[in-house]
């Protein structure tokens, strides 16, 4: 019965997998840009900026991604703003990822040892110059392991886009299942496909952490 699964089915799944990768990259890029801006706000010398951005991050982090997607896909049309499944899922993912990346990167910026900040100040660099030339380059190195680790979360989270109808890997699997009715086998294949996408990232994150060690672990603590 599993032999009902033919090449066209697998090709359909492969297309879904490519959309999963595309959606993941979009979330990483969009979430990364927004998250970076948020992270800078979180370490801003101005307390209101810090507080507001902190509140915003807490709000997003305290909402399930699924609810965010439902809000975008079902909620906005009720207000007259209709989004496609891709836009709704993508937008929700970008928002979700930006909040988590902001916190991870904030931790990494704060993990740069205090003496580095002070040395840069002592060299009469402005705050922007300090960030750009001294703090951020070091923060980026600390941020590599947890960021790559979070990429695993992004890929897994794209599976929720299936719930609003976007045809990525998960949805492709559900559609194939509707045609040949072998749910356990199909979802096992889907699981293995996700594993193949995620596990290399996990290993890479672990290798980065082994190389850069303690500071990264401290920064990544939730």
């Amino acid at each position, binding site marked *: 019965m599993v032999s009902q699964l033919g090449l066209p089915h697998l090709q359909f799944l492969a297309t879904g997998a490519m959309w999963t990768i595309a959606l993941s990259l979009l979330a990483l890029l969009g979430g990364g840009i927004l998250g970076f801006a948020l992270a800078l706000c979180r370490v801003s010398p101005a307390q209101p900026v810090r507080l507001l951005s902190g509140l915003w991050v807490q709000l997003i982090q305290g909402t399930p991604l699924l609810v965010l997607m439902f809000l975008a896909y079902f909620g906005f*049309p009720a*207000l007259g703003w209709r989004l496609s499944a891709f836009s709704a899922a993508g937008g929700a993912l970008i928002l979700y990822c930006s909040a988590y990346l902001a916190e991870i990167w904030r931790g990494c910026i704060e993990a740069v040892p205090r003496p580095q900040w002070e040395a840069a100040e002592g060299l009469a660099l402005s705050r922007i110059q300090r960030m750009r030339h001294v703090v951020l380059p070091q923060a980026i190195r600390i941020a590599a392991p947890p960021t790559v680790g979070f990429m695993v979360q992004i890929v*897994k989270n794209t599976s929720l886009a299936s719930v609003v109808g976007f045809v990525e890997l998960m949805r492709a699997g559900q559609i194939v299942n509707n045609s040949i009715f072998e749910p356990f086998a199909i979802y096992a294949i889907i699981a293995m496909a996700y594993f193949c996408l995620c596990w290399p990232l996990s290993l890479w994150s672990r290798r980065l952490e082994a190389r850069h060690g303690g500071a990264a672990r401290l920064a990544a603590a*939730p």
Partner: protein
Amino acid sequence: MQLRLDFSVVLERWPLFLQGAITTAELALIATFAGFALGVLCAIGRRGASRPIAALCSAYVEAIRNTPLLVQLLLVYFGLSSLGFQLPAFGVAAATLAINVGAYTAEIMRAGFDSIPPGQVEAGECLGLTRAQLYWHILLRPAMEKVWPALTSQFVLLMLASAVTSQISAEELTAAANYVQSDTYRAFESYILVAACYLLLALLMRAGFWALGLALFPRRRRLGTPL
């Protein structure tokens, strides 16, 4: 975009939301305790002398951490029904959530156990404690205390992730929102309300864990210093 929000229609359905919230809380509670026990056993297995058991625990952790929760849910749901079991959605949801959080807990607790200075383990061994007694009396609570923030965050994330179980018809909070919005056409208000409920639940959970921490770690309660 017309911004004519009408929360009243949605708020009159509050019993549904309350029931959904209770179900979410029940799922989170069951999965937290079962998942924690599973995670601790798995962490112990990975640190043990038996290579096959350590490999099995590692395989479990890697498999769970590298696949989406939604896929795990559907696998358990359809796997069980293909074997002939017709478990209620709540049971499947609770079990899958427990298995899921167990893998993440295993990693956190393994780090916690590894952070205990080996001298204390030696001292315990030299007093005649068995490996099980060592873990229970000497390793478990200090390890938990060290990783308590990480554990708290993990279990709050679990509660938020339980939203996904609405996809296998568990009647929790997100499912309540889905139902109300399909009935009232007030999707935006429904989901905003539910988001607020999740925030509140997350806050309550964090408060609960903080209080639990005080109860579990008397030294910390009395002295206020980190371990």
